[in-house]
């Protein structure tokens, strides 16, 4: 088994807000992330797939194919978007880095056939990242 990691970046806006909570509760739990005008991040996504090396090509997966899947399934929808307002998963779910990583896993898992999705790592900041292994 060999592991391949492809990195991609996207930039997006979000905020954290629960409409059923009072403004004070939102502020207490989410702090400055509760500002309804939103704020943004440059996210760095690392997608790791696992598989066997193909005897003919020497590839675990064709990188161009993986790049195209990442673009089509994730980046085209997330990059330069407002996550709360434009990405279906987050119309009701908080677009935390945790929920983003899980949503990205769900989008990618069914689209990878010859390899197994091993890990989705998402950096919100250089000093804060989340890992999801589909468990």
């Amino acid at each position: 088994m060999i592991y391949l990691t492809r990195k991609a970046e996207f930039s997006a806006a979000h905020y954290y807000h629960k409409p059923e909570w009072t403004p004070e509760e939102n502020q207490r739990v989410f702090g400055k992330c509760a500002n309804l005008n939103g704020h943004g991040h440059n996210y760095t996504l690392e997608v790791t797939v696992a598989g066997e090396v193909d005897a003919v090509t020497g590839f675990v997966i064709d990188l161009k194919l993986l790049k195209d899947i990442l673009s089509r399934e994730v980046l085209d929808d997330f990059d330069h978007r407002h996550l709360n307002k434009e990405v279906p998963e987050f119309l009701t779910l908080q677009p935390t880095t945790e929920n983003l990583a899980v949503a990205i896993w769900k989008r990618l898992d069914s689209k990878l056939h010859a390899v197994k999705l091993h890990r989705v790592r998402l950096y919100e900041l250089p000093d804060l990242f989340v890992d999801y292994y589909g468990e």
Partner: protein
Amino acid sequence: MKVYLTRRYPFSASHRLHNAALSDAVNRETYGKCNNPHGHGHNYFLEVTVSGPLAPETGMVCDLEALDSTITGEILNRFDHQNLNQLQDFGAIVPTTENLTIRIHQILRQTPLPAHLESIRVEETANNSFEFAGIGQPRR
């Protein structure tokens, strides 16, 4: 559902690698320039990985401010801008970054954290880093 969250913190400290049970010559041979009697220092980076299910209300593994304040109180205030050799944490234990990583894990294992402690990683320089997960294995 289990999600892993990693937070990275800088701290700076000095140390000298020297084992009093060994001769000066063996210390010099073993630790090289890290055995300099006056010590030297590093800008360390600590990575703390915690895990757990996502709270349905918040979509978060834990409250980051709570994690930050615990790590600041228990670890950064203890080690930042200190001479590691002078701390009770080490005593006869050589403050290699291996031992520092294990010590930080020991402290945090005994500290109430807002989510389950998975592993500790310490970068001594951009080229050297160490990971410890107690009896477990760091998740990769």
